[in-house]
């Protein structure tokens, strides 16, 4: 039944495609001047429908945590819909900007909806060198594609879909930029004030702090260089740096490093006894982007997550989940399962919670001369426990403003490993997105 529903969703997406195809008129190369008119107000965005089918990995730690009270749930389906609106109003040197995101999802947990302001700010540009911004904004620091250890004032992005927009934090920030002749071409400074109080940015860290962070950017010897700093406040003090450089016309290298001083971490033993460790977490990332003559693009990254869990710590956590599950089956008491779930939410259940990862994405632009057709293959491997995910996908953008993406994800790894203990074995997702 669930597979049938998923494919009905798939067919629905395909059914709307022909209606959007517009036949072209040959040799009509007009360029109407009205197409270039400036308007102070603009409204755009996209609407998305995304059915997902997941074959659950029965017996794994995260399957137990998610579905322990739902007997014989072998396959789950999701029908996710999203509306993301972008509005802006420009007047003189000022600009108001808003990005709002509305989700309406039907999953194994039933219907749920969510409305969030991802970004909403006022930008004032007294000169082309200076921009002062007040409001909710994503800072997006760091040069990595899949991970950004140097993103000191951002929410972590999802390496399975790193190009998705994220919710920002309410900040007061400014950019001051100066250009030069010579080896140093550009320098810019971005200070950020981030208040963390009960009703403002309360998920960033501990409450009642006014946090300060600074980014200094340089384009020096044709290399992008950022130096980053976050003062101690609602989070520990942190220092970061990143770089990016084109080695040739088809080869780019980038890297990031971050040090979080006195980083706290809650760990559990296999019986569920938790303890707090405090240590200096050193994280780094090295990556490249390479394009072949046949238009295949390789993105490869190696990520060391200094605040991640060791193999032993993860094994202990998985053992605790097994113990909690056995207790639930034996007694019907879900208290230990709830404790295990809470630990999952505090770090063990993060997308990539361990220490060393490799990311590889290969994208072939328009193979066999098929324009707007892009197949890709992505793998994320845990270097420590040798488990991995592999995700083939195809994207089709032939129809103006319409994007169709089919993506599958397969997880591989024995019991006790990161990808071997995730809830979903196989995952199939169709994303139909219409921009307006």
């Amino acid at each position, binding site marked *: 039944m669930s597979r049938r529903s998923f494919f009905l969703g798939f067919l629905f997406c395909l059914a709307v495609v022909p209606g959007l*195809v*517009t*036949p*072209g*008129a*040959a040799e009509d*190369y007009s*360029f109407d*001047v009205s*197409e*270039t008119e*400036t308007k102070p107000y603009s409204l*755009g965005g*996209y609407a998305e429908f995304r059915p997902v089918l997941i074959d659950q990995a029965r017996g794994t730690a995260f399957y137990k945590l998610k579905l322990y009270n739902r007997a014989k749930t072998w396959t789950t389906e999701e029908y996710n819909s999203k509306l993301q609106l*972008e509005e802006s109003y*420009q007047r003189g040197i000022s*600009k108001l900007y808003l990005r709002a995101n509305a989700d309406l999802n039907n999953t194994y947990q039933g219907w749920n909806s969510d409305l969030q302001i991802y970004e909403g700010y006022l930008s004032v*540009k007294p000169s*082309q*060198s200076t*921009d002062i911004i007040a409001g909710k904004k*994503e800072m*997006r*620091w760091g040069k990595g*594609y899949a991970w950004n250890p140097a993103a000191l004032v951002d929410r972590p992005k999802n390496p399975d879909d*790193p*190009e998705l*927009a994220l919710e920002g934090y309410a900040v007061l920030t400014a*950019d001051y*930029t*100066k*250009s030069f002749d010579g080896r140093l*071409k*550009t320098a*810019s400074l*971005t200070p950020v004030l981030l208040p963390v109080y009960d009703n403002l940015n309360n998920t960033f860290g501990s409450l009642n702090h006014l946090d300060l962070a600074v980014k200094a*950017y340089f*384009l020096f010897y*044709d290399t*992008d260089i950022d130096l980053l700093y976050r003062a101690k406040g609602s989070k520990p003090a942190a220092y970061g740096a990143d770089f*990016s450089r*084109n080695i*040739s*016309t088809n*080869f*780019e290298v*980038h890297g990031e490093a971050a040090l979080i001083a006195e980083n706290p971490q809650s760990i559990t033993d296999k019986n569920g006894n938790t303890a707090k460790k405090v240590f200096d977490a050193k994280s780094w990332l090295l990556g490249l*982007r390479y*394009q072949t003559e046949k238009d295949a693009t390789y993105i490869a990254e190696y990520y060391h997550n200094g605040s991640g869990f060791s193999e032993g710590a993860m094994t202990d956590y998985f053992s605790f989940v097994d113990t909690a599950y056995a207790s639930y089956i034996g007694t019907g008491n879900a208290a230990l399962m709830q404790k295990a779930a809470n630990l999952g939410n505090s770090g063990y259940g993060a997308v990539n919670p361990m220490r060393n990862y490799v990311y590889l994405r290969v994208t072939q*632009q*328009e193979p066999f*001369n098929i*324009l*707007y057709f892009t197949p890709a293959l992505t793998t994320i491997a845990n270097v420590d426990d040798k488990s991995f995910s592999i995700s083939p996908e195809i994207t089709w953008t*032939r129809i*103006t*403003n319409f*994007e169709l993406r089919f993506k599958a994800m397969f997880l591989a790894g024995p019991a006790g490993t990161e990808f071997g203990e995730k809830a979903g074995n196989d995952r199939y997702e169709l994303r139909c997105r219409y*921009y*307006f």
Partner: protein
Amino acid sequence: MPKKLFIFSLLAFMAAAAHAVDGDALLREVDRNLEPPSYEMYRKLINVEPDGRKKEFILYMVRKGNEKVAGVFLSPASDKGRGMLRLGDNMWLYIPNVGKPIRITSLQSATGGVFNNADILKIDFGAEYAVEKMEEQGDEHVLHVKAKNKTVAYDRLNIWVDKEQKLPVKLECLTEKGMLIKTLYYKEIKDFGDGIVRPSVIETDSPLYKGYKSVMIFSKIKKRDLKDEVFTLTFMSKVDTLR
């Protein structure tokens, strides 16, 4: 005998040098006729498929000298707000969803189709290429030019230049070994005002994309002085505000 040989060699060298200077001077003249050194303009890019179906993009672009080019996509909605920046040999793409500039290479294509990033963020031919040979074909000069360094998208170009108007008519982009990558056809000469008279349409096709072609249409080309800070990563999301 050695003296005669020396004089002959010297004359041959001087003739070749004079020839090269003529070619490079012509290339510079072509550059100035095509675009002022600092400008703003609008471009429409059309990718045409073999069955006639089209996909269109509109860009607003600014340039300052031979180092700095920036642009922003105004349409379609799926690409609106995407920014492109070139600073010397460095190129970046800004995608609003991603929220930060990403380094790109000159051979990639931000729009799909036959035009790549180097075609869109083009600077003067004379800044990147030197004339190796010049020949005459009827009403046209043919300039055979070679890249000055390895950071350029095409190793060699053959440029057919109208003798009278000093404007390109056709341009072939080649690999170092002489393999044809694409051909550009310059069409429909138009007076944009302020002394700018140039082809308003560039069509391109490629043996690598048989049956497909891409077209670039130019509009509202105007001389404009811009601050250097416009051509920086922090300004990429704000290029639209220059309009």
